[in-house]
């Protein structure tokens, strides 16, 4: 029976590859073409709304993959990954704010909120943010640095399990408070918004929208491939070995600190890139992105999709977020109940997520035959 089912699944993986390729084609080629080529009246038209929604969800899916790398493979549950996502968003948002130029409400070279606060010049950390390249370096560098420092000390002290999770939550909470302050220099409560253009091209043009959309899809694909390569390599094996028996790995001469830290920083950077792609598509970034609730939601995408599978969390991100955008419009009072129930149901009944559920269902149907 064992070999039979596993054979069945080997067959399914081939099928899965076909399905995946089809989905990639649909999302990254067909949808953009339909969006650009057909008018709103056409039956085949893919609406602005759908493109923005899917683009947004693909950014979330990148985060889900990043989360799976550390939770699924290294056994580290972060409840603060929203922080890195938001930092990436803010870093790119700085460029977007500078790119508005004097077209803001106050027609000043400074971002509107600084004029409003009566600041005369940019704070030092805004230096160079009018260059796309520097802003890109910040997107990667700042979260990597923060994750590096935090991870180094946390892993060095061997903080793990719920302890680690709680600390990451406290961390994103602290940053949220910090960014809520006007004096921090990131627009306080309102954050950044009213973006106008990237590299001189209007941010609202259909070409730009599709460009960002396709870019998000490509980055998602690349993240998946990169993580797939990592977990299949020796590195991935050591990472899971550390997850399953850290002291054994340590007494074999592997230093868990550097393995965990590498995965942790990479995960943070992927989140940050996702955040940077997310901000121009939704047109706003504010400290709310750093709220602990947002970060925990990431975990549920991964849990729904199934930990340790990489493609599962992508699926999970799509399912949960599509459900969210439908439910919050259709019956807003009940969305939190649904989400809450999802958290409970997934952990109680399908700890392996949808793949586990699928496996169990096929087992049941096989037995019936």
């Amino acid at each position, binding site marked *: 029976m064992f070999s039979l089912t596993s054979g069945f699944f080997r067959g399914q993986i081939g099928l899965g590859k076909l399905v995946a390729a089809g989905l990639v084609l649909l999302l990254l080629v067909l949808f953009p073409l339909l969006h650009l080529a057909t008018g709103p009246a056409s039956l085949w038209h893919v609406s602005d709304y759908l493109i923005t929604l899917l683009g947004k969800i693909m950014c979330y899916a990148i985060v889900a993959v990043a989360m799976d790398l550390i939770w699924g493979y290294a056994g580290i549950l972060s409840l603060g990954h929203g922080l890195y996502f938001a930092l990436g968003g803010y870093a790119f948002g700085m460029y977007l704010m500078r790119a508005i130029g004097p077209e803001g409400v106050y027609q000043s070279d400074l971002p509107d909120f600084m004029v409003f606060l009566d600041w005369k010049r940019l704070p030092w950390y805004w230096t160079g943010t009018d260059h796309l390249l520097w802003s890109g370096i910040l997107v990667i560098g700042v979260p990597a640095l923060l994750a590096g420092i935090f991870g180094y*000390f946390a892993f060095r002290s061997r903080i793990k399990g*719920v302890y680690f999770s*709680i600390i990451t939550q406290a*961390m994103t909470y602290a940053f949220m408070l910090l960014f809520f302050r006007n004096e921090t220099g990131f627009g306080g409560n309102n954050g950044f918004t009213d973006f106008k253009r990237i590299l001189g091209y209007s941010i609202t043009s259909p070409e730009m929208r599709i460009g960002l959309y396709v870019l998000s899809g490509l980055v998602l694909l690349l993240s998946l491939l990169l993580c797939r390569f990592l977990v299949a390599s020796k590195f991935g094996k050591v990472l899971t070995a550390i997850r399953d028996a850290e*002291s054994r790995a340590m007494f074999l001469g592997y230093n868990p600190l550097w393995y965990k830290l590498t995965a942790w920083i990479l995960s943070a950077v992927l989140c940050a890139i996702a955040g940077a792609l997310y901000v121009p598509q939704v047109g706003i970034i504010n400290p709310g992105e750093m709220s602990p609730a947002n970060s925990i939601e990431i975990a549920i995408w991964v849990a729904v999709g199934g930990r340790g599978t990489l493609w599962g969390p992508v699926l999970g991100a799509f399912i949960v977020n599509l459900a969210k955008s439908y439910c919050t419009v259709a019956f807003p009072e*009940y969305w939190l109940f649904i989400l809450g*129930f999802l958290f409970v149901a997934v952990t*109680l009944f399908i700890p392996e997520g949808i793949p586990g559920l699928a496996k169990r269902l096929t087992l049941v149907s096989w037995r019936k035959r």
Partner: protein
Amino acid sequence: MCFCARANLDQALILKLAAQDSDEQIEAIHLLGSSGLGEALQVLKALSEGGLSVVPEQVFFFRGTQAIDAATGQVLPQAPENADTVIINNRVRAELEETLAGLKLLDADPEIRRRAALSLLNSPAAQQLPLIQKALARETDSGIRHLLEQTAAILNIQSPDVTVRLKAVQLLGQSNRANTRNVLQSILAAQTEPDENVRKAIQTALKSINNRLTLTEFLASMFTGISLGSILMLTALGLAITYGVMGVINMAHGEFLMVGAYATYAMQGWFRSHASLDQDAYLLAAIPAAFLAAALVGMALERTVVRWLYGRPLETLLATWGLSLALIQSARLLFGAQNVELANPSWMSGTLLLPWGLELPWNRMVIIGFSVLVLMLVWLMMNQTRMGLYVRAVTQNRPMAGCMGIHTGRIDTLAFGLGAGIAGLGGVALSQVTNVGPDMGQSYIVDSFMVVVLGGVGQLAGAVWAALGLGIATKFLEGWVGAVIAKIVVLVFIIVFIQRRPQGLFALKGRSVDLGG
């Protein structure tokens, strides 16, 4: 001026109250106010309530059904016909309110006088000076006298007479109030004081105020810190118990605070709908109600969800987070998304005045006392009862406790209920100092986790000390750097602290129990 029991007011002055010109009205109000007469107070009150009416050459108001002549205070046999209500604009109203507040200085009730003197001290107005001096002449209560003298001194400091100014400064030097210090400092900063001696006196006064204020401010910060810490403690005690017994971190723990607070709110509503009950007693009735409500919710959650996740702490984290979302949304649907406000019972409102100008709000003092009481009960329960013995046994060695015939499952449920119930009591306390809202638990949960982390998981004593320490540290930091930075500093401190001492303040070192990963 005359202080006889029944006095006639100047008819012309009374008529001016009904004048068309607001300046005339204000002048009349001031003159009536500074007379300090009970009759004047009555008339001004009537004016403020819109109950003053005028016919040509006569102003009157109603007391019950009787019409009373404002000038003579005599009951008119018949209310005049075709009377107009005296209307006042906002500027006049502001002056009127101020004067009325000032007149309270002459009230028979010392508590009303004291409050009036205090509010006057916080925002002194120059035209009140005559009234203050009149009140001073009559005042017998030394505490109130002190307040009045201070107020008068703050006003006199602008006097053209050097000796008056000097005397005022010397008087202010005896003050314990930060406000007084600000007043003196602003005079020095503005460099408006022409006289050298007065300037010197101001400096001496500032020095002596500062000396006393350092202590007062220290004690005040300490007090608010302890009061914050005591609420944190009520939250963290429950967390520490459930973590110790079951090894799970319950993300929905903050929502037990919320459940307790809403139970208090519901109890207040029930008391209000039964007028025969003593309204002040609602809080006492709320204590068992909140405990039970939170404990029942907690036990239900334990039985249905938490129990099935033993040994999977990370999943428990997520599942309980889901539960907290559902609880918050339930509260929104049941009680509305808006915050609701609870009234302090009268025995909890007001402040206790201590020497050195220390003012301790009663509600916070009661909360501190309440927390100590709960702490003692929990301690007794854990150390003196069979249930406590079982809980400690399960905490230390679950399989062994099971072998000894303890129903570990039942103990889990009870311990979870106990932890939730204590948080519910925390909710009662919290409802007396902040607004009650569906997501109130969320803002305390990070803090209470930090308490547990700092104190060492599963350590009750650790939780108590960590809560107090955190509360006091937060309040002192708030004084120096503001609330947000204080919070960040505390969080960063804890993150750094864990690096140095991962097992918390109070955890026992021991030989490694488990070597596997």
